């Protein structure tokens, strides 16, 4: 299968659609810089985020601001006003002190790879066409935060511990936006 994500390494945020999207219907008008999509309905559309219904908007979640910011290219999370602890993922109450006064803060978009591997088979539903793909734990630069992410636009053999990566966002065919990392462009 083709992997459209590999063909769009130079695209900046908001980035290319998820790979495998060529067989999924689009619920939004296509912008000019996106790869062409099939728009005919498929009998069994596959969920990409391992769920069946988008639930990222304020009707369903109190952390909808994360996704609003992500769509604008900002990578954010919550910080507790009481004890100052930085959360990942964003929370509605501080797990440490139970305080409910939280602020949205901007996270660094660059990080270094702490550990990585690749999925060479056995991917979840909706991601089978992405195989092979790289995943890893990433230490954000300048923040006390290590988080797990897809590392797109690279091969396992080309990755190494300590490699610098940067955030990119991408649109999903059902209208959602999500994030992943990719090897950093030279500064």
């Amino acid at each position: 299968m083709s992997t459209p994500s590999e063909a769009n390494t130079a695209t900046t945020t908001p980035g290319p659609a998820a790979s495998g999207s060529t067989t999924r219907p689009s619920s939004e008008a296509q912008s000019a810089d996106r790869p062409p999509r099939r728009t005919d309905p498929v009998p069994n559309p596959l969920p990409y985020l391992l769920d069946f219904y988008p639930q990222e908007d304020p009707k369903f979640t109190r952390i909808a601001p994360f996704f609003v910011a992500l769509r604008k290219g900002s990578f954010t999370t919550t910080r507790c006003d009481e004890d100052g602890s930085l959360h990942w993922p964003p929370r509605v109450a501080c797990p440490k002190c139970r305080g409910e006064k939280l602020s949205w803060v901007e996270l660094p978009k660059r990080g270094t790879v702490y550990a990585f591997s690749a999925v060479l088979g056995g991917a979840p539903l909706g991601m089978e066409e992405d195989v092979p793909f790289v995943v890893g734990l990433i230490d954000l630069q300048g923040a006390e935060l290590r988080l797990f992410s897809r590392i797109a636009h690279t091969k396992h053999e080309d990755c190494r511990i300590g490699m610098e990566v940067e955030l990119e966002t991408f649109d999903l065919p059902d209208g959602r936006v999500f994030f992943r990392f990719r090897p950093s462009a030279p500064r």
Partner: protein
Amino acid sequence: MSGGRRVAVVAGGLSNFGVRSATWSELVQEAGHSAFGAIRNFSPQDVDSLFVGAAQPERLAFQSHVAPMAAELLGFEPSKIIQRTELACASGQSAIRSAYAAISAGLSDVAAVLGVEKMNLPSMAEANTSMADVLDRSWDGVHGATAPPFFAMCAQRHMLEYGTTAEQMAMVSEKNHRFANSNPTAQFYSKTFSREKLLKLPMVAPPLRLGDCSSMTDGAAGLLLVSEELARKYTDTPVWVRGTGQHSHFHNLSGAGSLSSWPGLRAAAQEAFRSARMEPKDIDLAEVHDCFTISEILEYEEIGFCPKGKGGQFVADGRSDLGGEVVVNPRGGLLGCGHPLGATGVAQAVEVLQQLQATVPAARAVKGAERALVHNLSGSANVHSLMIYAREN
């Protein structure tokens, strides 16, 4: 052990493990027949409580409310406690711990435990998705992670920091497959895996090859636990629960720490040994959660069978094999038996029961075994559950 009543394991049994031409319900009846079908003085009406360890029946068998379904299939009508326990890969041990707690507290006298999972569907992606959902789905699973890449990262860091090698990991798999070779209920019964063959199998999640990973398996296992005063009604050779420990310290992978150390396991093991008034050197055999080869190596270290960082050398020196100071996974482990999530912890306890009763075939018998440890991890090794059993009360 803390203050409550003493608890005995008096019987256990298994279905065959593997890619089975059998449904969830059929596996329950197979294990039930094996576990409860030939107990001295036993009637199904004796069972006052039933605990069913089942991780993902909603997705993999399209069925919830499974505990009463299992009760019906086994002819039980529990009047004290009936419930399902879910703790992903440790769902089975979770059921045993619940039965132990209920009997110890005086809420039950005769508790049946059943662990079961049906994992092989026409679409393997269903099970892979269900495994990704064990992680924090919205933030970790969505990146495409299932178990292999997580444990691959643990292996990568352990190799970097302690010099553990792919060959040492293959030695874990070789040992456990050799034991499974003589275990008729194992998924890889009568199959041979040399180290050379294992090191040539395809990569699944680098550095883990196919032989470093346990399988998607269908299977079920049953166990009967009773209070001290009833133990000898059902058997002359009860095995006693002597201690238990558990620890949960993160869920989202942002809290996973170094990956090369599992402090949660260290804490859970210390609690299990404290409650059993034992030390690692007192254990004759251990059934530990070798979902991946690197897991067993980390488990030697964190349980305390060897110093930190020396797990690879421990298996290379044969110290976890027959004749070593602790025989690890004589059943064949998850690598050799397969890993039906809800059944695994119960199947490990059945092996311990049979080892301590000296009824297993000679090829994997731990001669003179008096004390045994069972360990399950679940999810991304974020939860660790342990039990210690002994022939002596």
